[in-house]
């Protein structure tokens, strides 16, 4: 067991440690949201439900993130005292500038995810895919894959530290897990466009 094997072993251990602990973080760039926003403030103190802001349009398509004027209907003037709300009213509502929210669940352009069949036909609760995002008090930064450009919540195996699975699931594996069970899995064309 001369020194060569030891050195080789040291290099081996170093690489494995780096690979599993540090590298996954390096794959993703953290991007901050333009504004701090608390779902909890709106659902608890504001007493609102998911559908109030994230509703369906009358033609059945999902409206997604509320528009500025929807927010401005309550926030024409600062309702609370928090700094981020003041910044929202000053820099966005007054100037009529649409905040560029970063969407955690933005699916790739080639994936077709309609909310109507899942929410209305299958009656799934928002938490089944979005996890506890609805009760979050602050918005975590969006982790964008530096190479593929997709959000971490949407693409690739959840390789967090030691590969622990993240809460909620909007990755392909999560969709396939439900669809395979409910005999809804025919071919790639079901969800790809």
């Amino acid at each position, binding site marked *: 067991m001369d*020194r*060569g094997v030891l*050195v*080789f*072993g*040291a*290099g*081996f*251990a*170093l*690489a*494995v440690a*780096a*690979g*599993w602990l540090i*590298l*996954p973080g390096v*794959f993703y760039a953290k991007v901050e949201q333009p504004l701090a926003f608390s779902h909890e403030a709106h659902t608890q103190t504001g007493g609102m439900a998911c559908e109030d802001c994230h509703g369906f*349009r009358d*033609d059945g*398509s999902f*409206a997604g993130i509320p528009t500025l004027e929807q927010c401005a209907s309550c926030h024409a003037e600062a309702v609370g005292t928090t700094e981020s709300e003041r910044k929202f009213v000053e820099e966005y509502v007054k100037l009529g500038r649409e905040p560029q929210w970063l969407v955690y669940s933005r699916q*790739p*352009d*080639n994936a077709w995810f309609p909310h109507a069949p899942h929410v209305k036909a299958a009656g799934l609760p928002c938490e089944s895919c979005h996890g506890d995002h609805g009760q979050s008090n602050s918005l975590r930064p969006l982790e964008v*894959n530096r*190479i*593929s*450009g*997709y959000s971490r919540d949407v*693409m*690739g*195996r959840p*390789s967090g530290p030691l*590969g622990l699975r993240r809460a909620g699931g909007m990755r392909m594996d999560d969709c396939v897990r439900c669809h395979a069970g409910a005999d809804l899995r025919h071919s790639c064309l079901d969800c790809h466009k």
Partner: protein
Amino acid sequence: MGSSRRRLLQLAGGAGAGLIFTPAPWRLLGDSAIWTQNWSWLPKTPRGALTSRATHCTLCPAGCAVCARSVGGIPTGLWPAGEPLCPAGFAGHHLAWHPQRLREARHDGSPDAAANEVEALRGRLEAIRARRSRECFAVLDLAPGRTASLIHRRLLARIDNGAYLEPPAIEGATARAVSALLPGNVRAALDLQRTKTLLSVGTPVADGWGSPARVTRALRRFRLVHAEAQQSRAADIADEWLRIHPGSETALLAGIAGILIEEGLESPSARRCPDYGEFRAALRRARGETGLAPDRLRQLARTLAREQPAAVVADGDPANGPYAPETQAAAAALNVLLGAVGVPGGFAPRMEVPAPNEWAGVPVSAIESLEDGSIGALLIDEPLPGCSLPWTLVERKLAKDALVAACAWSAVGVSRRAEWIVPAPVFLETLQDTPPAPDAVEASFRISDAFLPPPPDAIDAVTLLARLAGEEMAPAKALEERAAAIHASGNGALTKAGDAEALPVTALDSAEFWQSLKDGGEWRWSKETGGVEPARLFPPGAGLSVEPVRAAERVSGWRPAGVSPLLAKLWQESELKERPGAPRAGGSAS
């Protein structure tokens, strides 16, 4: 020295081996493959609410009803709404983004402010007025027959010695020749939807003539006999193709007319025409060689006489432009002989869309009618692609130091000759309406709404002319006034978008009428006109000569596929439009 390098190598070897057991290389492999589907230079589809609104396609006189599907307010497709659409219609929403679209004003090719052009034109106008010279201020309207054209003529009346010019158009040439035979200034149009047999001489019936989509849908209903020297697209789809000698169009028409008279198959209204005897004499002299067997000509004449209502169209062909006046006169005379003039299914009198009475303006004058060098300033209005005009025709009429300005959709059309070019708002950027279709007898008024913002310094020709005439006018205002005039006339009925039944105009108030027109509704007015008798067989002073057609100035005037780059799918990326027997551009059909 040796051992430290070897140690380093061993360390690197260990690290390399260790990496294999971490997710890093495999994630790299996976992410780079996924990266190939999300390249930054690949366009992303737009996001936003999917909406669909009814409007009309005003890219050609047909004015077909369309449903504009939009994402976030930007139209992503025009789809049929009850009536068929032609290929250019499906890509009409691309005109606003056309790569050759002019977006900023230009003076002699270099970018300049649009306002300078208005000043330059106003200065030239003052100079013409000051010099009291014969020179006139002319507007060359390359999309004649629209409401904007009427406004041009009204505003030109306010500018002393203003002249309104229309390009020599092929379409409707026969209809114009037949109108000359009708008493009074009644305009005739071919009632194609009710025709049973149509003899088209050279007219490209299958390439955007008349209302292209309606012609395609009606093709199975009437028998089309097409006479042309080369196997064009119209010859392909015709039920019978007569391969005549090039230039023997007049001989063919005269031949058929002769056989009709010989066998006494001509219509009684023709016999009643005063110049019937003189026409028969002229026919005997006009014997020409058509390249067809005599019995085939006889059989064709009998078919035309038997399968009524039959009509003859000899507008001209894209290769040679409009036919000589003698040919069109012969075609008009043949229509009279067949009894196709003034009756449904033939050349019936066209209902005119009412316009406000105070819109009387300068008369329409053809470019040839002006004397040479008489145009001091020329404003070209080119809102659409599709009109090509031999510039020599216009150049002769320009004065030495004439100023040529243009309001154009792009700088590549006829407007490339202009010193000043200002971008004009195009289809879907401003309210527009369509000229009367050469193959529609009933009067109809349809407009296309504005979906997109026009380029920042775009000026409509009407607005520019209004500024010169010291008046405030915009396309929307003009259309609204015309709608009010139509509503005041109390004629016709309005079909709201999506409804089937038509409401008489009187049942709506003026504001609701205008609003439902903007929402894609359509006003129609048709009245069963009593049989109008043709006044004569021949326009006064026209002879009947059968020597080959004098190739007029090459004017295509057709609506080629300039609307969107996607039409390259037909003209370049497939062999569909290749002329049969043409040398193979790309190679085999695949």
